[in-house]
């Protein structure tokens, strides 16, 4: 029997499985869709099946050659979705789960999916607050909003961060996974979905599934893109004349006599002419000139996939390279993925997966770091020299940008990650029962090498001709005047062992499923570091360093970690209409004291598909209406290990006695809390999944609530200050979160071949602190009370605009009691152009008692996304808009406050919008040579709405028709133009609304000026399949 399998458009389908029912006889279609199979006779029945298409059965009868047209699966209901420790048919899911295909995420020209996930699936909140540094541009991702309270004792960990699971193993390795390798991403959101992850589940779980081999002949694909990046926003700072003009204006405002002004008017007006004649006496420093606004970025990927019923294989090699905004900064990654799956017997499957990456991060000289370079470039006083006419480096405020960038020093980080998994799956003699054992071994090694060379620059003496240039070493703000080399070696090995027993069976109308998992995880890690100062020879190897023992430091630590968990899930679906499920995990962790190491996290859920009821039969427009509900507990590991132990810390360099050599010392640790344990969340979720109009319109809505308790907090008010030590944190704060999320999708194919798909997501999350430690001063003041308000609510003064000339009734230049203004604002002498604050408690002075809430957390409460996809005759277009609202950010920076920190430069944002007598309706206050304490108070004057909508990703592609390709033996070829962060609409016109606001722990933080700008990327790319 022979034949050909095609899709609805008549194109050949390659790799379709053709099987004779009841036998092991089968084959797959070749590259032209053809197959040939010896069948036992006319009564045989063949089944044609292929992922994404409805299977079709054909009775052979007397046919010898047939053409089969497979229909595409229109509904997602029969998709298999990856869930905790197993997979499930979408139709059987009771929890709140959303998923997205890897191909949708790979459209964005980014190195990992953290930057493309937000808005694609509902419930994922992401903000690129850490900036766009190559290799270090991870977006802060939260699932269903902020889940916990930032812990100041652990400033490097975000207590709301979700758990990351890659191919079934808990691994925090999003950085190492090329988006091209990803098959799908599943987001587990409610208690029922996260219950299998126990103490790791309370913040939601992101499951990444990478690609594996598929049945069919070998298929080789190549893809790549090349493009350029530029900052979404880069501050426009003042040129020399505007700087000087503003400085004089500020001095005048500050009552400096006209004769003593720093810059005479004719000096300013002739500055550019003079600069042309004598650029060293009249220097111009422009911080923008060091920035590369066309930094390249490129990515190449090669994948080979194929397989038969016996063996399937997948191999992938990836290369990613991203240059930085100035020369030394770059990130390079080589990634690989090799997976082989062998059906050793008809009931035994063995799979091996090796994934990994070699990464190299390159940064500027170790003693400065790129964030300081940005800060220094914004600060640079424009009448100071960046570089002299003879090429020597200049300086401003003791900082030499070029000296630092070109010191010859560097900071390199090499990371080698391997994620390896071996699994054996055995179907057991009881129908539907199988057992799987998994061993995963993930070693990571990191080598950091930091080399510092002194930052040389030149000072100029203009009192003699020719000018004398003297070499100097910049030490302002920290860089040492000597050479040093620092190296650190970190090694970490993660082991995961899983035993999984699964059961799936059908009894009449009941589909029963169950799962039992025993999982053990452990980690060993060590680090070794050394530093030698003072190199006479500039060779960055330890052997060349100083032999003086005072120039040496050596250090190292090691540790282990372990966790044990038992997972169960049981569920029954009746007639596709009703389902009940229970799941949970009994979890143990080494962080806590014996006796407090274990906890149980159960969850229950169910659904009712109303559309399948008889009474709904006549409602033809509704295909499915699955009402879901779930309730359960989950946990979150907070704090650090061994907080239950009383002990002493070793201080390497404690003190010194007469001979001036540092000796070791010890110091008592905080008093331990033996009862310390994990945070707990109780989550409730009600939602529905609806399909309407012949599955053309799909809607999912969830409303949910979670109570988080046992959040770690410092019990400040319990012991007297004389106690002399701090207690360890206690599990004593709590909060609740509520939210709604919505996903709507529709698709349509027009008669002329145009296909349109629109998918939108929306989530709104609020939260409320229900119990926190706060002082009586804030708790007793309803305006300042933190309890009852959302996490990171910002407090400050309420600004009532700027004073105007009309407020200075007696015209003496100051506004005080003689003008009828009796409020004391920080003892400041108030002038027109200064900020006026509301005296909330009417006590005649502005102080802490006048503080009120002045905005939301910088992390937005509302997030939404809109995905538009269109394709027509080989052209495809996708536009992805992402937005956020209800977010507030403090915009004080060099760009908005003039002469901050040593007469630093400021931005045209301030210059063009500042208050002057002739510009009374100004956005910013009057200029001062020193930031005025009245005008720089935290207030709603500075806390601005950071809502935005941005065209996050856009892609336009063209696939060359197969007819043409056939001649050159290529199956598919597509070229495209793609971009990220292309357009942004925001009330903040002068900075990226996603940048800054909170630190890595999720605490409110200022200082956008030290963050690497977010990048706008435009690339061209191709993909080819052979």
């Amino acid at each position, binding site marked *: 029997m022979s034949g050909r399998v095609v899709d609805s458009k008549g194109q050949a389908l390659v790799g379709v499985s053709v099987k004779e029912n009841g036998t092991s006889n089968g084959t797959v279609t070749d590259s032209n869709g053809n197959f040939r199979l010896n069948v036992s006779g006319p009564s045989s029945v063949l089944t044609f099946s292929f992922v994404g298409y409805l299977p079709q059965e054909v009775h052979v009868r007397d046919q010898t050659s047939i053409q089969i047209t497979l229909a595409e699966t229109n509904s997602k209901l029969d998709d298999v979705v990856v869930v905790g420790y197993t997979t499930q048919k979408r139709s059987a899911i009771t929890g709140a789960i959303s998923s997205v295909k890897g191909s949708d995420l790979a459209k964005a020209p980014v190195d990992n999916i953290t930057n493309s996930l937000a808005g694609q699936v509902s419930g994922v909140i992401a903000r690129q607050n850490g900036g766009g540094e190559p290799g270090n541009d991870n977006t802060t991702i939260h699932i269903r909003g902020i889940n916990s309270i930032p812990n100041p004792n652990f400033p490097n960990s975000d207590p709301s961060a979700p758990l990351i699971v890659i191919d079934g193993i808990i691994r925090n390795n999003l950085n190492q996974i090329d988006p091209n390798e990803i098959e799908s991403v599943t987001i587990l959101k409610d208690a029922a979905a996260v219950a299998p992850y126990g103490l790791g589940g309370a913040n939601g779980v992101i499951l990444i599934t990478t690609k594996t081999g598929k049945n069919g002949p070998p298929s080789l694909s190549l893809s790549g893109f090349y493009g350029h990046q530029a900052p979404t926003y880069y501050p426009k700072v003042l040129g020399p004349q505007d700087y000087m003009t503003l400085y004089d204006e500020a001095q005048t405002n500050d009552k400096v006599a006209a004769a003593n002004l720093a810059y005479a008017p004719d000096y300013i007006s002739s500055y550019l002419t003079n600069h042309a004649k004598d650029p060293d006496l009249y220097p111009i420093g422009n911080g923008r000139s060091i920035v590369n606004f066309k930094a390249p970025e490129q990515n190449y990927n090669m994948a080979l996939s194929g397989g038969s019923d016996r063996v399937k294989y997948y191999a992938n090699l990836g290369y990613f390279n991203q240059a930085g905004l100035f020369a030394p900064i770059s990130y390079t990654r080589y990634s690989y993925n090799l997976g082989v799956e062998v059906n050793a017997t008809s009931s035994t499957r063995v799979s091996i997966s090796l994934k990994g990456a070699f990464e190299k991060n390159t940064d500027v000289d170790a003693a400065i770091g790129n964030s300081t370079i940005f800060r220094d470039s914004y600060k640079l006083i424009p009448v100071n020299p960046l570089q002299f006419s003879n090429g020597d480096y200049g300086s401003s405020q*003791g900082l030499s940008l070029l000296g630092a960038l070109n010191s010859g020093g560097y900071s390199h980080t090499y990371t080698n990650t391997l994620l390896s998994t071996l699994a054996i799956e055995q179907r057991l003699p009881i129908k539907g029962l199988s057992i799987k054992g998994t061993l995963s071994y993930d070693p990571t090694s990191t080598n950091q090498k930091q080399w510092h060379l002194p930052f040389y620059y030149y000072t100029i003496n203009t009192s003699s001709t020719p000018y004398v240039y003297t070499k100097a070493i910049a030490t302002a703000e920290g860089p040492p005047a000597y050479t040093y080399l620092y190296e650190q070696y970190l090694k970490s090995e993660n082991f995961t062992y899983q035993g999984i027993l699964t059961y799936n069976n059908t009894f009449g109308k009941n589909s029963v499923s169950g799962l039992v998992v025993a999982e053990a995880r452990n980690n060993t890690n060590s680090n070794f570091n050394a530093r030698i100062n003072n190199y006479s020879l500039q060779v960055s190897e330890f052997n060349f360093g100083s032999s003086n023992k005072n120039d040496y430091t050596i250090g190292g630590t090691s540790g282990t970690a372990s966790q*044990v968990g038992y997972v169960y899930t049981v569920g029954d679906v009746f007639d596709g209409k009703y389902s009940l499920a229970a799941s949970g995990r009994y979890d143990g962790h080494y962080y806590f004291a014996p006796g407090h190491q274990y906890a149980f996290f159960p969850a229950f859920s169910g659904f009712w598909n109303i559309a399948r009821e008889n009474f709904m039969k006549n409602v033809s427009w509704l295909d499915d209406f699955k009402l879901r509900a779930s309730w359960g507990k989950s946990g979150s590991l907070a704090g650090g290990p061994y907080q239950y132990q009383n002990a002493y810390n070793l201080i390497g360099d404690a003190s*010194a006695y007469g001979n001036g050599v540092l000796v070791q010392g010890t110091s008592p640790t905080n008093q331990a809390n033996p009862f310390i344990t994990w945070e707990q969340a109780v989550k409730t979720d009600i939602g529905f999944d609806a399909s309407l109009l012949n599955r053309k319109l799909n809607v999912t809505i969830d409303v949910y609530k979670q109570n988080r308790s046992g959040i770690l907090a410092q019990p400040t008010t319990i012991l007297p200050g004389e106690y002399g030590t701090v207690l360890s944190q206690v599990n004593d704060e709590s909060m609740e979160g509520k939210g709604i999320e919505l996903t709507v999708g529709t698709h349509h194919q027009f008669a002329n071949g145009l296909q349109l798909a629109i998918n939108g997501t929306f989530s709104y999350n609020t939260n409320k602190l229900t119990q926190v430690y706060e002082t009586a001063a804030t708790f007793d003041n309803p305006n300042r009370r933190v309890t009852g308000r959302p996490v990171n609510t910002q407090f400050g003064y309420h600004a009532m605009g700027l004073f105007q000339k009309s407020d200075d009734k007696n015209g003496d230049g100051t506004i005080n009691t003689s003008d009828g203004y009796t409020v004391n604002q920080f003892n400041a002498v108030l002038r027109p152009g200064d900020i006026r604050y509301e005296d909330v408690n009417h006590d005649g002075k502005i102080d802490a008692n006048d503080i009120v809430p002045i905005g939301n957390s910088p992390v937005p409460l509302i997030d939404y996304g809109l995905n538009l996809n269109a394709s027509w005759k080989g052209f495809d277009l996708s536009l992805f808009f992402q937005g956020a609202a209800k977010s507030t950010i403090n915009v004080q920076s060099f760009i908005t406050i003039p002469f901050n920190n040593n007469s630093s430069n400021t931005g045209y944002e301030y210059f063009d919008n500042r208050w002057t007598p002739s510009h009374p309706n100004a956005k910013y206050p009057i200029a001062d040579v020193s930031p005025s304490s009245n005008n720089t108070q935290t207030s709603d004057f500075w806390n601005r709405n950071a809502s935005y909508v941005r065209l996050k990703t856009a892609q336009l592609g063209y696939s060359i028709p197969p007819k043409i390709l056939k001649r050159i033996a290529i199956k598919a070829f597509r070229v495209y133009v793609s971009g990220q962060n292309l357009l942004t609409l925001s009330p903040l016109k002068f900075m990226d609304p996603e940048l800054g606001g909170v630190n890595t722990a999720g605490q409110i933080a200022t200082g956008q000026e030290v963050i690497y700008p977010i990048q706008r990327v435009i690339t061209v790319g191709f993909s080819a399949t052979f």
Partner: protein
Amino acid sequence: MKRYKFLFNIGFVAMLICTASCNKYLNDNVNKATIPDADQWASEASADLFVNGMYGHLYNPTNSPDPLDNFTDDNDGGIYWTSYHYKAANVGPSVDAGTQFNTFGNNYADWDSNYARIRICNVFLQKTKQYSANFSSAWIAKRTDEVRFIRAFTYSMLLQFFGGVPLWTTVPDNNTMTAAQLDQPRATFEQTFNFIDNELDTIIKNGNLAVKYNHGDADAGRATLGAALMLKGWIELFAASPTFNSGTYPLPDPGNLVHFATADPQRWAKAAATFQQFMTNYTQYSLFPDYSKFWYEDNEYNSEIIWDKNLVANVPSPESSNYDQYGGPVYILGQYYTWGNYDPTQELVDAYRMANGKDITDPTSGYDPQHPYVGREQRFYQSIVFDGAPYFQPWMKRTDTIYTRIDKVHPSQNQIDFASSDVSNTAYYNRKRLNPNGGAGVSSGINYIYFRFAEVLLGYAEAQNEAVGPDASVYAAMTTVRARGGLPALPAGLTQAQMRTQIQNERRVEFAFEDKRYYDIIRWGTAKTVLATDRHAMEITNSSPTDDAGVWVYTPIPLNHPYGFLDKMWVAPIPQTVMDANTKLIQNPGY
């Protein structure tokens, strides 16, 4: 079928094994980051580490960009610092009530840090008793006195800033003590004073410690009998002073928490006797001849040094000094070097005498206000960088001249700018105590000196002058200090009040930039005068600014920084968080 059974068994057994061994699996992790109790107190060597840690916890004020002198009329720190708000009389127990005081002057007045130090001392005393079998009695006797000295020193800081405080000599433990036992009320000023005084007295009588360590001694930097007696004399002098010893206090203090209930002039005599005891018994101490080189690292543990915190060059803070990052001219040889945080005021500059010993206000002194830096006493040139001053440190390639004048023709980077930049707002920088070998950007090993012998002499002179009057011994002590500073002896026949003025000015000049002035203006009561008035800068302009052809005109001008002194400021407020935690505490008057 066999195969299935085999695999099934493996899985089942694996689960069972895991269940049985899971506790072990979790508890096998060893906390290698910390040291358990038994190891800590196992031997003298291990317990010595704890004492090392205790010395490491001592204050190192050299690393404060806002030194205690910025809280006085001597220095202007600039608007970024706490001192700016303090001097605007904006002080309170919490941010709600003004500037928070507990970070004031780098932890001097930090309630929590001080009690943390006290706890560490008490832990040592408790644990060495518990593990006494591991130590020799000689070791215990010596270390115990060292620890008791550190505890007394820490209580003395609390006394000086807060008045009477709860006195803890044991380790509070919330597992064995009730809340009522943990919340102790404040001892009175007198009780706290007596406690410190008695502790020091005991240490001195025990005689377990060395009198003095000299340069090269391995134990130099540990507590000595000299340090104990000096602290005793100082705390007696402090308490005998008018603010605390006049029997009255400007604000109601019914619990006598911040002053003695009754005035007692004999307290001066007690202080004088203690200083006399020092001079008589501890003859190992004498003035170091060269004032300008006194702080050099080469001269550590010289004859004058009584007690210091030993610091080491080029190691991480706080065990090294960043003083050179904060003090001295901002631009040196055209290069940016320092933050310029120690800017002497015109008031301090005026306190330096003429070389002939006369006050500049004395018409016969020879002082010319238009040539104000000519003919001044030696310590002026050793301590202050002024306009036109040659500036040289051995680490510099050549001598620089520092110009702070407003020069339109040849503007200098150090030119006074009245702005928030690091450049001085007063037209002066300090020179004293800077590191000759390193310069800014290099952390130095210059020790922070808490007490030196000149303080014994001036302390004696003051106490004796108050107790008895300006007798010969007062003159002798003053003459010794002044002679080292290049000044002639004081004229004979001064009244007690005249001598008092001389002593007070002598302390200001001799101890400038040594964090002594704050305590002096508080205890003398002069803060009310000197802080309730604006400080001054020196504006130097040319009478012909366009070509510098005229003469340079010196005009002292007000700094225009907010100023004020309120009666509550004689002592610091107890931080509100501390008040909230212990309801038995009574807040200091006026806060």
